[in-house]
């Protein structure tokens, strides 16, 4: 007996599932507005309140970090130790705040994507939705693994420090208006910090997944448009009317995805710019510290920060480059079609129009200062390296 495999229909939820779940965990609701009964609505409101509370608390932590740095301004080493946290904490807070503030716009943008998602089995096979889903799942698993490992290491080291060495050292060096020598207070403060760290990590994880998934989906859409373009003129039995309707559908799909990228860009471009500036400064600073330190402890302490700042820039440039590649591939798709065999002038003119438009790639911008792509990545790395060599040669 042959075993019939049940081919499951992939929905858009499969792409963004993990991200939306994690956001829900910390209280940010990004699902589309369906009819909610009283109980889920109460949960939603509770979640939003929790998220708001979290934002206030992370603001407090940033102030506490600043206070610590200000108090220890005379000792440059302590300031250097605090600096990575000082720049990272506001960035993470701002990132989650952007998601919170724009949650309606994000919902609308996601629903645009949802509308254009292929719903029939045949479409999904044609477009190779499986491959994209696999990519997203790989990212989700890999990134999640990394985060869990990091958290576990941190917790274990904290526990070891407390119970084996008896030192009351908080995971983050901050200034508190009261002393935490008392074990109970220390426990409470540690728990508070632990809660904030947990929410921040989950939030960042969810944010990266959402960004990755939506960019994957948009590049999938561009690729599907490219495939459709390649099929123009192949079927010689099609009438001109049918071909023109086909072309019209292609253009409308393209305009939809252009609109999505435009809206998405409006929401996130300031965040991307801030991320890039902060990551570059941090990168430069950390490379300098690492190269001028002599002991292994500094190395161990700062290496994660190096990893995270590089990772942030690389991830965003990778996503940006994906969009640039897939949107310019439509032009190649048009040229790959059987345009030379088409005799209708109307169709040729329409193809020319699509070609002109597709030659300008649509990309995620850094708010007028540039475009996210590997070219920007090289520029940033080159600039950071030149600053580093400059500082090193004079110190």
């Amino acid at each position, binding site marked *: 007996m042959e075993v019939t495999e049940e081919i499951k229909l992939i929905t858009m939820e499969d792409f963004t599932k993990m991200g939306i779940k994690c956001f829900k965990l910390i209280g940010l609701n990004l699902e589309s507005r369906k009819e909610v009964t009283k109980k889920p609505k109460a949960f939603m409101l509770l979640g939003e309140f929790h998220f708001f509370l979290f934002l206030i608390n992370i603001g407090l932590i940033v102030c506490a970090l600043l206070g610590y740095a200000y108090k220890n301004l005379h000792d440059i080493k302590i300031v250097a130790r605090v600096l990575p946290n000082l720049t990272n904490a506001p960035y993470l807070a701002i990132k989650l705040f952007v998601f919170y503030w724009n949650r309606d716009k994000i919902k609308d943008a996601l629903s645009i994507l949802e509308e254009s998602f292929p719903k029939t089995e045949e479409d999904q096979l044609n477009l190779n939705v499986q491959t994209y889903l696999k990519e997203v799942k790989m990212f989700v698993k890999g990134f999640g693994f990394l985060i869990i490992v990091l958290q576990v290491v941190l917790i274990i080291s904290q526990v070891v420090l407390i119970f084996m060495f008896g030192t009351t050292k908080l995971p983050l060096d901050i200034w508190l208006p009261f002393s935490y020598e008392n074990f109970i207070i220390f426990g409470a403060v540690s728990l508070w910090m632990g809660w904030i760290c947990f929410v921040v990590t989950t939030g960042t994880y969810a944010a990266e997944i959402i960004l990755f998934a939506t960019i994957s989906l948009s590049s999938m859409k561009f690729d599907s448009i490219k495939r459709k373009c390649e099929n123009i003129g192949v079927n010689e039995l099609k009438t001109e009317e049918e071909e023109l309707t086909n072309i019209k559908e292609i253009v409308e799909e393209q305009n939809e995805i252009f609109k999505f990228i435009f809206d998405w860009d409006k929401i996130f471009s300031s965040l991307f710019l801030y991320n890039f500036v902060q990551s570059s400064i941090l990168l430069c600073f950390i490379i300098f510290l690492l190269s001028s330190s002599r002991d292994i402890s500094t190395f161990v302490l700062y290496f994660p920060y190096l990893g995270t700042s590089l990772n942030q820039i690389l991830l965003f440039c990778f996503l940006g480059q994906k969009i640039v590649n897939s949107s310019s591939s439509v032009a190649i798709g048009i040229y790959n079609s059987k345009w030379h065999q088409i005799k209708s002038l109307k169709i040729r003119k329409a193809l020319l129009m699509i070609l002109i438009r597709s030659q300008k790639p649509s990309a995620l911008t850094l708010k007028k*200062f540039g475009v996210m792509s590997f070219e920007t990545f090289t520029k940033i790395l080159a600039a950071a390296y030149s600053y580093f060599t400059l500082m090193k040669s004079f110190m």
Partner: protein
Amino acid sequence: MTSIIESKYVGLVSDLLPNIRLMQGFGHFIFKYINGPIFLRKVYSSVHLVLLLFQFLCILLNLAQNTDEVSELTANTITVLFFTHCITKFVYVALSSENISRTLGIWNQSNSHPLFTESNSRYHQIALAKMRRLLMLVMLTTCIATVCWTTITFFGDSTKLWRDHENNETLTVEIPRLMIKSWYPWNPVGALYFASLAFQFYYLLFSMVICNTSDVLFCSWLIFACEQLQHLKGIMRPLMELSATLDTYRPNSAALFRTVSASSKSELILNDENEKNSNYDLNISTIYNTKSDWGAQYRAPTTLQNFNGGKGNNNNPNGLTEKQEMMVRSAIKYWVERHKHVVRLVSAIGDTYGLALLLHMLTSTIMLTLLAYQATKIDGVNVYAFSVIGYLVYSLAQVFLFCIFGNRLIEESSSVMEAAYSCHWYDGSEEAKTFVQIVCQQCQKAMTISGAKFFTVSLDLFASVLGAVVTYFMVLVQLK
């Protein structure tokens, strides 16, 4: 009374009248658009020029006198460069006032179309509001800057460093408490001190205002051009919808097109199609085309039925009267003519003000380098720190002002293509599609303002200036 006289100004002049009046009031050599005796105005401007030049020379003499001590030299050079902007702009506007009035006059006669007057006036009002707001903001900032400069003079010690050659050491010498370190042919004590103070206040205010008003004029031109481009983008969609009706007319339009002159584009298109038809195999021609085939098929679809803009009753497939067809043609003509007008305006702006931008950037670059050096000597929160940071912020803000508007122009002009693509061009007539095609092709290259072809004014320029300052600062910190 004056309102009757003012209202005779049209176009850009009437929009920018407050700016022009301000410029004339502060002594710029602009003598058009006045309703009084020109000779008095010339005298007024020349007096201002003489006074400003005199003070500038005094500052230069002070620089020449104190070249021994490095920090004094640097500080005085920065002051000289700061006030060079004013003299440069003053002389530049005087020399190119013909160009400026020509640029202002470019928009005196603009075309209009009954369909698009509402959109036109809406964007015109937006541009006007933005220009006024910009002028007010910049004037306010200038006044605040002058007041701050005057206030900070009265804090801290009023001294300068003097190198004593006999003992080879640096002494601090008392100098009169004035806003700018300058040599005067008189000794500023007592009543003369207050006179010098007043004179320096006048000098500060006038030089900053002179400099900034001409920059605001440039930026206002760019605002106007950008809003015109927004207007053009906005009317693209109604134009396409309007022209969609042209296609129902196709079977009969062949005859109409053939009577048009040979230079008309639309006839060429049709001739092409005719030639292609004659080469066809009989089988293929039945599939691909006869005009009646197209006509028959095009009457059926729903895409054209829901067009609701423009004039005319489209329920009747034999549809378009000659008047309506002419209206569509005229709409396309309006669009193209308006776009060409904007391109003319932008190139005139570039020709008029490009050289001034180049000179500004040259002076600013040198000044910012020296400021980076001065910044390395900041050792606490005192008058010195505030003044260095003040100079830095002010110069960077000046550069930022025209960079941001230049960047906006680039963005707007290159997004016309995207707007053209996102309207329903596939429903339009052949003529409209050719029009969209040519627009897309042309608007791929963005309109830019260049500093006499040396650089383009955009945020990249600002980022590179900022990066250069930071680099110099870091290098100089190490060299200390």
